[in-house]
């Protein structure tokens, strides 16, 4: 999937992946896509909850070898 910006939150625990996602989205334009990599298994539900509550769109969630990849489209 194409993306405009990415960051790696591997090794970070709740709530850092969410807080850093929020920060990363701050200087992006509407409809741009952010790629986030995380290893916190709680992030699966939290990223969806973040999207639901902030109006951004979680395009996809993938898991491979204990690593999660999220694509979030800014509203």
């Amino acid at each position: 999937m194409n993306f405009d910006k990415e960051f790696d939150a591997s090794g970070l625990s709740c709530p850092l992946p969410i807080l850093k996602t929020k920060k990363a989205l701050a200087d992006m334009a509407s409809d741009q896509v952010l790629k986030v990599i995380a290893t916190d298994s709680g992030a699966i539900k939290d990223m969806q909850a973040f999207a639901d509550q902030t109006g951004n769109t979680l395009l996809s969630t993938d898991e491979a070898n204990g690593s999660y990849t999220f694509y979030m489209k800014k509203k």
Partner: protein
Amino acid sequence: MTTKKMAIIATKGTLDMAYPPFILASTAAALGYEVQVFFTFYGLQLLRKDLSSVMISPLANPAMPMPIPMPVMVQMLPGMESMATMMMKQKLKKHGVASLQELRDLCLEAEVKFIACQMTVDLFEFDKSEFISECEYGGAATFMGFAGDTDICLFV
């Protein structure tokens, strides 16, 4: 859509109990909430510029997981508190949990408002210069002014 609001009353000053207010406040702010945290009694320790005195004690804390079972008589020994604090901090770091300082900075960056209880400052004769400059001082009525209109209000 009107902005959602959350208010937290932070009354504890130990390392374990310092996390919930800062985690919830920073996360709520990231979700778009307007957040205020009222620090009272021992919670005021969390507003100190230097957070190194925020510790955890295994004493009278039977729920704290310990690497080896430790009798209360041993927990009472001098230095046990520092040791437990050091071990907890190492564990937090190993698991990628943010430090208190980091979470507090993230709160401030996200414009979480910190209110220090003026009565407690007077009661314990604290020196305001020891606290971070970002906090405001107020009393219960100041807090109610915000808390009365919130969606979430927590006592920690």
